[in-house]
């Protein structure tokens, strides 16, 4: 029993944090907001070099062959930096899905995906829209329980502008044909379930990073902003609001880390663990967004102040890979079952 990350895992986290602090500062995030795609192939390639992109890809295909436990801390950093590249679409979900599909598809795509030369987007029934489809080289799309591999050119994308300028989604139409079908029946169901677990886990981990950053921004601002002759951060109302967010955050964190382990080990309850993580992380981040905005006052209400970068990330990640209602329903189905293993001593059994 050791519920902690290894030194290597923490070191990789620090490396990614440092890299993103340099390459994905708020100005860079804003610069990408105003581009047509909102994405940067150059940045994506760099991210691949740091190891973020191919982490879950087997090393036989130029990936790192690591697990979700290794990946989860990096996702946290992605959230902390408000990085908007297709980390979830490709690194967390798409590439592992291609690996699981195997065969020609994996042979054709896995290596370019792992090294950041190709992007895959995944259309999953949990959401009406597809993230990052507009920059994808390969679309994996569900239709009537089947999974189809579709070239972007043969799908019709309608971009859906979103309140988070970093989120780029589209409604995607395509004509499923037998040649495009890459999985069906039980296999497709299994693959879609895995995709959902990985996607929601990655979103949850990003939300942890987002919430942490929101608290940090609010603490920094209220420590330097003086009113009535004192820093406003010395007022109990400001302190307690942020303390409450911190409590939520620190008790969402273990759920996220546990979910990562459950997905990595493929244990039976992994989907429930992911849902618990996603809900707790989303709630913490929503609370963090409200508290950070309020702590900033009028300046936080401006476009030019940075706090809304993470506020919008909190909103959009909350809806990625399953809204809270979806995940709460999965939790309820588990916990309210007659034979649910609840109570003391059942946590790890």
């Amino acid at each position, binding site marked *: 029993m050791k519920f902690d990350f290894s030194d290597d895992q923490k070191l990789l986290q620090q490396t990614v944090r440092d890299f993103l602090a340099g390459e994905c500062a708020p100005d860079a995030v804003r610069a990408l907001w105003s581009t047509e795609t909102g994405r940067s192939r150059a940045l994506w390639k760099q991210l691949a070099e740091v190891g973020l992109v191919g982490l879950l890809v087997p090393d036989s295909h130029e990936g790192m062959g690591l697990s979700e436990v290794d990946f989860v801390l990096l996702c946290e950093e992605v959230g902390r930096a408000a990085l908007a590249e297709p980390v979830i679409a490709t690194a967390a979900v798409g590439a592992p899905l291609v690996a699981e599909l195997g065969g020609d598809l994996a042979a054709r795509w896995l290596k370019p995906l792992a090294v950041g030369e190709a992007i895959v987007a995944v259309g999953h029934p949990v*959401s*009406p*829209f597809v993230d990052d489809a507009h920059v994808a080289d390969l679309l994996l799309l569900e239709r009537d329980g089947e999974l189809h591999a579709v070239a972007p050119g043969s799908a019709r994308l*309608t*971009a*859906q*502008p*979103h*309140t*988070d300028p970093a989120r780029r989604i589209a*409604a995607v139409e395509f004509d499923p044909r037998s040649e495009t079908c890459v999985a069906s029946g039980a296999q497709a169901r299994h693959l879609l379930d895995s995709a959902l677990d990985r996607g929601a886990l990655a979103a949850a981990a990003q939300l942890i990073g987002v919430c942490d950053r929101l608290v940090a921004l609010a603490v920094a601002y209220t420590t330097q902003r*003086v*009113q*009535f002759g004192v820093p*406003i951060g010395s*007022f109990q*109302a*400001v302190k307690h609001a942020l303390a409450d967010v911190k409590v939520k955050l620190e008790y969402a964190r273990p759920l996220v880390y546990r979910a990562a382990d459950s997905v990595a080990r493929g244990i039976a309850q992994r989907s429930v663990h992911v849902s618990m993580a996603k809900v707790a992380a989303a709630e913490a981040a929503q609370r963090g967004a409200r508290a950070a*905005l*309020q702590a900033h*006052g*009028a300046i*936080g*209400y*401006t*476009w*030019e102040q940075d706090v*809304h970068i993470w506020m919008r990330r909190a*909103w*959009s990640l909350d*809806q990625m890979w399953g*809204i809270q*209602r979806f995940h709460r329903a999965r939790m309820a189905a588990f916990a309210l079952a007659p034979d649910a293993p609840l109570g003391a001593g059942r946590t790890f059994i």
Partner: protein
Amino acid sequence: MDLSYTPQQDAFRAEVRAWLRAHVPAHPLPSFDTREGFEAHRRWERELNQGGYAMVPWPVEYGGRGADLLEWLIFEEEYYAAGAPKRVNQNGIFLLGPTIMEYGTREQKTRFLPRMAASDEIWAQGWSEPNAGSDMANIQATAVRDSGDYVINGQKTWASRGAFADWLFGMFRTDPNTERHRGLTFILVPLSLPGVTVRPIDQLDGLPGFAEVFLDDVRVPVENRLGGEGQGWQVAMATAGFERGLMLRSPARFQETARRLIALYRAHRESADSAIADIAVDCWSQAEAYALETYRTVSRLLGGAKIGSEASLNKIFWSELDLRMHETALRILEERGQLLPEASAAGDVGTWLDGYLFALSGPIYAGTNEIQRNIIAERILGMPR
């Protein structure tokens, strides 16, 4: 207790309703935080004025209807129920106008009120400065007397409507040896003057709902002073006082939001989370409570009572209710709730997102809710400072 309207009040309501039905634009105007929308709203204000509905609570002698607060509530109810445009001229008509009537000289009334009524001059608020937000008395912008002028230097910020307005009102320190509430003077400043730089500030919706105003040796004649020199705080308190606040936050707005929320829930009741129904109904009940409390307050005001710190209860209640209603709507809308109005999948849901962004400002502007809670605790409950 008599919770019914007089025949005269019913008749007034019917008259307002008929006029609005005939005049409210069929399509929403563009946001008044765009140049185009600002001018469209100015035209609407002029149409209201021609109909005799621009300055409903102003005395007849200034071109208003001399409506009392009850009639004002009725007007607002009809105005919101009709889905009429937002009031771009509200800083003038509801805040500055009555203050000029109270503190202005005859010349000032003649100079400012008709152009305000005609929306030829639209006003920006200039309450805040970079170091005077919650701490509103910490004003540092100065106005130095130089023969017949004040020479103004400093910076105002969060000036709502500031991006496109014609004039700004605010307080300036005329006595450099004073601190806080003393030594402030209320001055009216044309934004077209040399030395004035307006920097529009984009809000969370990406539009410049407020502005920073830099004042660099700006000369305004002493005649632009409202009230006496050094009397600025008193004039400002009248401007920001309870009755004015009531005019700006009449219950009708929240009742209409509650109505739309219930309708939204009903439209999605098959798919919506069942707990949402309770929340939506509770919001409706709270909006009714807000309306009832407003009528009760107006009854007490008309009966001669004074209302002071109660405005802080009011502020917290409506701002939290407004936020809760919009949050609930976005929950009902699920993935569509975060789409911008122009998204093809957004359909007609986009206004809830805009409303949510606006609602987020509620607990911040006009005195943060933290400041309001202090006031409630100290001035209403009598707790120690």
